[in-house]
């Protein structure tokens, strides 16, 4: 049977998955193999070396670099307090006395007699690492972190902003094509992962931030709102570090696009349960998509499938068109003609025939569709 390879986002009611949780630099692993962890448990931590502040003693005291050794009150390795005098001259007349105070709390890192500069370093900062998902530690990477294994619902979005967070799922829309309005967000949404339908506007997202909502998951947002929210245009899709007060996950794309019904129903089936979400997106080498993870089986599911992504499409598969002129339209694959076809733009491309809901058949480049789960 004809089939074609195609990328698709994962939307799985239940799957066995692993999450690697590693520190950026070596540190200490706090849990051992086999331990059950909650999403907010610390699994590792490290100390980030403090910031370095250079102080040019020679310039400020108007002496040659090699002369600073006579003026320094501290040597390499000595602790310093903010405001403490670290260098001073000893003139005959007291009025001409000059001194230099430490701009920070920390230690003297180094002294240079070539540049007349000393380096002060702030105390190290503790960097804790949470488990992020509830599960079992199945592997320890010494000095760096752990791998956690868990079973549960796994849903990928197409784009997100903001980092990792946790909270209960709250369905705030009745259907996937309903717009999430500010009024739909009440005190009950505080600390929750709020699920909307086709779109959330700027006023809705701002209201969510005010209320202390942890995350919003919707079908689409407008780029103009995103710009207003961040204060700048996102140029390259590498996100996850934005600090806007919550995490936003878009499941379908930019514009007003109803959330895929399958995704919406799956999220609804986990309403009220605890979830881990991340908006981190990276669309280049090492692709990373935003995700919603709900540990445990959905109510009506008894068997956990490992990974149902087949990686190709066949006639009969439901698909979504992801580019104009039919952006967001859902249909079923009718056929996959093998030969190159001239499309409207006059390019030669591999195409597929799609049957729309009303029975109409259209031709779309294979590059412009995404598989939907059955």
């Amino acid at each position: 049977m004809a089939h074609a390879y195609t990328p698709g986002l994962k939307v799985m009611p239940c799957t066995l998955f692993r999450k690697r949780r590693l520190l950026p630099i070596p540190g200490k692993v706090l849990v051992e193999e086999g331990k059950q962890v909650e999403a907010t448990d610390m699994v590792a931590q490290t100390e980030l070396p403090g910031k370095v502040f250079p102080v040019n003693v020679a310039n400020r005291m108007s002496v040659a670099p090699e002369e600073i050794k006579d003026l320094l009150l501290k040597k390499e390795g000595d602790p310093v307090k903010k405001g403490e005098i670290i260098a001073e001259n000893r003139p005959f007349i007291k009025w001409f006395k000059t001194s230099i105070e430490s701009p920070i709390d920390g230690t003297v890192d180094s002294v240079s007699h070539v540049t007349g500069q000393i380096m002060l370093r702030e105390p190290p900062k503790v960097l804790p690492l949470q488990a992020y998902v509830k599960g079992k530690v199945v592997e320890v990477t010494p000095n760096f972190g752990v791998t956690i294994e868990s079973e549960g619902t796994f849903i990928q979005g197409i784009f997100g902003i903001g980092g990792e967070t946790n909270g209960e799922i709250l369905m705030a829309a009745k259907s996937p094509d309903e717009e999430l309005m500010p009024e739909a967000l009440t005190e009950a949404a505080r600390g929750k992962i709020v699920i909307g339908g086709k779109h959330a506007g700027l006023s809705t997202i701002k209201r969510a931030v005010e209320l202390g909502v942890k995350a919003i998951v919707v079908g689409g947002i407008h780029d103009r709102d995103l710009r207003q929210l961040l204060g700048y245009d996102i140029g390259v899709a590498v996100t996850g570090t934005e600090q806007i007060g919550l995490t936003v996950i878009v499941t379908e794309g930019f514009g007003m696009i109803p959330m895929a019904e399958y995704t919406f129903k799956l999220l609804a089936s986990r309403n009220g349960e605890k979830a881990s979400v991340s908006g981190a997106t990276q669309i280049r080498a090492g692709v990373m998509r935003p995700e919603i993870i709900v540990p445990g089986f959905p109510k009506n599911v008894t068997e956990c499938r490992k990974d149902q992504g087949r990686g190709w499409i066949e006639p009969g598969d439901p698909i979504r068109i992801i580019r104009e002129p039919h952006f967001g339209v859902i249909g079923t694959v009718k056929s996959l003609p093998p030969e190159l076809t001239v499309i409207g733009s006059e390019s030669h491309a591999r195409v597929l025939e799609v049957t729309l809901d009303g029975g109409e058949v259209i031709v779309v480049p294979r590059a412009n569709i995404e598989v939907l789960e059955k």
Partner: protein
Amino acid sequence: MSKKDLEVIIATDCGSTTTKAILIEKKGDTYRQTFRGEAPTTVEAPFEDVTKGVLNSITEVEELSGRKLLDGEKIITPNNGNTGADIYVSTSSAGGGLQMMVAGAVKAMTGESAQRCALGAGAIVMDVLASNDGRADHEKIERIRQLRPDMMLLSGGTDGGTVTHVVELAQFLKAADPKPRLGASYKLPVIYAGNNKAHEKITEILGDRTALIITENLRPSLERENLMPARHKIHDIFLEHVMQQAPGYPRLMKMVGAPIMPTPAAVGTMTEKFAKANGFNVLAVDIGGATTDVFSVFSEVFNRTVSANLGMSYSISNVMAEAGLANILRWLPFDIEEQDLRNRLKNKMIRPTTIPQTVEDLQIEHAVSREALRLAFDQHKALAVGLKGVQQERSISDAFDQTASGQSLINVMKLDYVIGSGGILAHSPRRTQSMMMMIDAYQPEGITRMAVDSIFMMPHLGVLAQISEKAALDVFYHDCLVRLGTCLAPKGLAKEGQLIMEWEVTGSDGKKQAGQLRFGDIIHVPFEAPKAKLVARPVKGFDMGAGSGNKVEAEIEGGTVGLVLDGRGRPFTLSKEPAKRRGNLEKWYKAMGMYPV
């Protein structure tokens, strides 16, 4: 094996997503590219071995050519009948290419020289640190800590000059204790190419913490740049350190018959060879999904820049952010809501592999591409400059014509040849679209030949040129370049409809074509002959390269597009009045037969 014996060559380019293999065979006295194959690059999980993709792409060449090239996972050498190849060469930009951070004492002097040095070696320059770069010292240290480059190039000071600044930079580097991007266990390679008087002090400061390599100063005096020794060191370290950390590269390095080159370095080599062989001033551009590389050779000086976030898919949204929506909209002959355009471009960013299905969507991508090409060219012009800080002797005759040092080397009137590559230029449905995108973005003046590298073969040929320049140039002329034709653009401004030039073209077959060009018009003359004679008579106030109103006779090239007589004037600006602008665009697009009606 001597160079004379080369008859069959297999070459690959390992890109971030695709590995492309080409087979080159000697037919009579000429080398020709005969077969090609491609396969997904296998640097990332689950394969994590670049050689898998290489072998797959070569297997495709085997299947198509019927020549047995592989014995298991080994390339059969030398060639014998219908088996094997005489040499295998490869370039690589997989895994993000070569990423560097450079530092110099004064930003506009050693900082800029260090940047040119690293870019010319094929690197992406993540940041340029300098004593006077406007950042507070602790911010510089923080920046070094955040970035994780593959290696660092430290320069500063002229030989025998003051050592303070460069020693200070070394101390910042030591305090930051940067880590290399790949492989947490090895020390960051640092190349020192600064004041030779500071060698001892630099070794004292950085010797323990980093893998320090000391080489000749890249700016021994203000009047002289000496980039090659440091560039060679960059290539050595690229092979010895960076490549060794990348998945499968140690094996790939054993397979090749010549050192692996970073892809942009190979394209640069080929651009230089082509310019030198013809005595041309050349501009070559490779516009990809994420980045745009620009190479130029002007008056035999080679320059390369890479605009890391200007591209047609991953970086499409950044083109919008940098150019501004208005600049993209100005190329469209129809109205579109700002919100709609914004969402469309963002949707392309998050689904980078989709393709335009309608003419309208294609025109939007072409509008973005013009802006990406223009911005990358602006960045190139800013770096491809003469040395700054050079003392100039002036006489009384210079009193009214004083130029500062550091003028751009790029002069579009003197530009002889433009080569475009990358999906949007190489695979546009009509070649006129590619040619017009380059004309609109670069606004060439006078006589400019244009071509595209339709299957991006320049990397393979650049690395091959190290072994056999003849083989590389043969294939470049016959199989790599798709000649588009020549753009004739008189420089000057006039009233719309005014006669600005008379022209006459005689093909090698003696066939003549002639006409008049009026201001505000574009004339398209289909013309395929590889060579023709042009006589152009611009009116007073218009220049075709010989001065205002002076007749020009020149050899030009025809091609798949032919001649484009661009009467829109230089400098060329679009009308601010929307209806007039759209009307003009429609007129020009129609004259060029750019889009289906």
